[in-house]
């Protein structure tokens, strides 16, 4: 048995509420919870799809419930927040060099936003086909 008693700094669970930077970090991490639930709704949709037309239509009409609409609105907001944080981190991951010079971070971020807009419009058009 060691007699050593190392000092352990106290860390309360509300550390992330006391500093705006940490709060934003936890909101970003917390976005995972809503996005997980959204994925589960989709997985359930695949299950209902496998059960036949009636079951699938019941899933579609359940999505019209006001609670579902409010939930999806929240998911949309938090998913967009995830997108913003993900894109702002992108220059750290991409780290492009052109002729030995590092590419300015703002071009990488802008490139992501432009692709995001193109992908979004493409998907909206695709579903209408």
């Amino acid at each position, binding site marked *: 048995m060691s007699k050593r008693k190392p000092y352990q700094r106290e*860390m309360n*669970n509300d550390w*992330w509420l006391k500093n705006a930077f940490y709060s934003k970090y*936890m909101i970003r*991490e*917390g976005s*995972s*919870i809503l*996005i*997980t639930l*959204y*994925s*589960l*709704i*989709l*997985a359930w*949709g*695949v*299950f209902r*799809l*496998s059960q*036949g*037309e009636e079951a*699938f*239509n019941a899933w*579609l009409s359940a*999505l*019209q419930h006001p609670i*579902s*609409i409010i*939930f*999806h*609105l929240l*998911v*949309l907001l938090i*998913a*967009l927040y*995830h*997108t913003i944080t*993900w*894109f702002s981190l992108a220059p750290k*991951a991409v780290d492009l060099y052109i002729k030995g010079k590092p590419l300015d971070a703002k071009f990488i971020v802008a490139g*992501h936003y432009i*692709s*995001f807009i193109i*992908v*979004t419009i493409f*998907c*909206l058009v695709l*579903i*209408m086909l």
Partner: protein
Amino acid sequence: MNAQQTTTNQLPEKKYIRSHEPIFWGLFGAGGMLTAFLTPVMVLVTGLLIPLGVIDAEHLSYEKLHHFVSSWYGAAIVLVLVALPLWHTLHRIFHSLHDLGIKRGRDWQQVICYGFAFAVSVFVFTLLLQMFSL
């Protein structure tokens, strides 16, 4: 000289333990990318525009969707869209549990988090396999 030789031979070979983190981190990164680019438009379509009738529900009808997922590429697309974000979110949830100071059963937390993502992936994969037709 001879004695020195034997001592060096007796040194145990250093064993490196390989981390499984790169696999999960890869899935986390891919899922994060997909979530960043596609989740907003997916939520917009399935959760808002179609239920509110802005886009006609015909565009996401049973026949259309069932036909789509019974092809191999349709099944692959749906599997990725539904399951991959989970490998991202459950990775984040696992690490957030640490951030919130939940120290107990760290291994089990990991098993439950990644196991959950795995279970849902298998669930969706099985359903798609069931609907698959050549």
